[in-house]
């Protein structure tokens, strides 16, 4: 039961490692960007899970409802910002991949490396 209770954290750890592994092992630059996105999403999941309170709702005060339980809104706000950062990073990364393709004619890391060594 304890294991299941921590389900989200397991997913966080697994996603994080999938992302990191792919970042290191994949040679294709687009796959690297995808891995980066997975890696960052894992962290988003981590923050959102942390903010959840059992039975909690959105933090909006309703008239006539006593003892409302809220989920903590702060991590969610942080993650909104972090998602924007993540999107910008992905966009910039892809833009660089496009420029790389224009210059080198390939998006494979090892081929680019080989061409760099020659020049």
């Amino acid at each position, binding site marked *: 039961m304890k294991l299941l209770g921590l389900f989200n954290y397991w997913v966080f750890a697994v996603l*994080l490692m999938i992302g*990191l592994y792919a*970042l290191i092992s994949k040679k294709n*630059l687009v796959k*690297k960007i995808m891995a*980066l996105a997975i*890696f*960052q999403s894992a*962290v988003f999941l*981590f*923050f959102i899970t*942390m903010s959840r309170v059992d039975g909690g709702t959105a933090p909006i005060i309703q008239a006539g409802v006593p003892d409302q339980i809220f989920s903590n809104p702060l*991590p969610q706000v*942080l993650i909104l*910002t*972090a998602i924007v*950062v993540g999107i*910008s*990073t992905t966009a*910039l*990364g892809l833009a*660089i*991949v496009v*420029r*790389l393709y224009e*210059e*080198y004619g390939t998006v494979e890391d090892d081929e*680019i*490396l080989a061409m*760099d060594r020659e*020049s």
Partner: protein
Amino acid sequence: MNLADHLPALQVALPLLTAPLVILLRNGFLAWLAALVASGISFGLAILLTQAVLGPGVPEYAVGGWQPPFGISLNVDGLSALMLLLVTGASTLGLAGGRLSLRRDIDNRRAPMFYGAWLIALAGLCGIAVAGDAFNVFVFMEISSLATYILIAAGRDRRALSAVFKYLIIGTIGATFYLIGVGFIYMMTGTLNFADMALRLGDVIETRPIIIAAGFITIGLALKAAVFPLHIWLPRAYTYAPNAVTVFIAACSTKVAIYVLLRFNYGVFHGNLLGHSDLFSVFIVPLALSGILLASAIAIYQGNIKKLLAFSSVAQIGYIALAAGLATQAGLMAAQLHMFNHALAKGTLFLCVVAFVLTTRSANIAKLAGIGRRMPWTMGAFVIAGLSLIGVPGTAGFISKWYLVVAVMGVPGWGIPLVMAIVISSLMAVVYLWKFVETAYYGTPPDGDVSAMEVPLPLRLLIWSAALANIYFGLSPGLPIALAESGTGTLLGGLL
């Protein structure tokens, strides 16, 4: 509240708000001028803040009137002021000295965008230095990093692109690790404010999430700071970036990551985690030592002057990390002073490289043969800054090397071997700089032409004022020492 109270916010807001205006200018020269003025005013603000820190102190700035720990706070202490001086100074130096070089590297059409990105990078780096909470540090770190990737990718060489891709991947991993660490701390303490965090950590001391957080934050920031062997992104990124950009980022971007590392490890963890300082030392000191020795050795074999200086930067980061890892008052002083002095020396050296490449169009040491006789003024400044990098008495580098040696001598049992490592590395610095100086003064130019070909007078004056600053801060190091003392006081709190 008068205007002076708003200085910490202005420091970030000014470049951040000028950036979109610069992009709207449709002319490369005007965009450059606007960026230079904004950067210059930022430098002025940093000087005002420094005066305030050394005098009455700067009150905590609550953004939007929301009081900390709930609101966003901006804090400026001695260490922040030191970083602000470095960042704004390096930016102004790079922009002022880089006009001719950047005009060649960047199309006139794209120049406004480029200078906009420059100002955003400046705003991000200033933001890290003034931010009083962990999450804003992350956001500013990403703002500055994203803008820096754009600046580096503007290099003419296509290898700039593959270099910047690697930097983007590693930089993002570093920032994400940092974010995970901040998440764990928030989970346990419910706060993001540095000061509040340091207070509340006492209640959850020695719990596993906090220890994991310390690990993630240290590794993430070590990636950003290019502590050996996490430096693999640095040499190529520095080498293929436009020369003026290298002046800017080489002087300050890695040091800002070390600044955050110091804030976390000393400001937050040091007083709260039992044995944290020992763990931190055991982790960082061997890495720093191998960086000091190996990166210096690699620098000797480089054929490109920019790559040579980049590997030298990795070694210098090693010195800073070594001093910071000692976890003593003397060590922290040495780390901060070395950040300041290394930025001064490296900024000047890369500015000289800007001048060399401007006239010869090559950063290859073999092609720069005889340059010392053709450009005696620039080469003279290069030698002065080089001496400062080595740590010759009378230059700024000597002051921090002296503090560093005194600090490592205080390590029981390890003093002599550590001093030996520093001396050996300094000798290697003599070797790699001499290699270039020898070629520059005694080598034969590749095409046999030995006529003088100096850069324009304004650039020469700028290079010389930067070089003379190396001597000035070597003879009267009062300002950096006062700032470092104030910074050490805040970092260690009431512990010592």
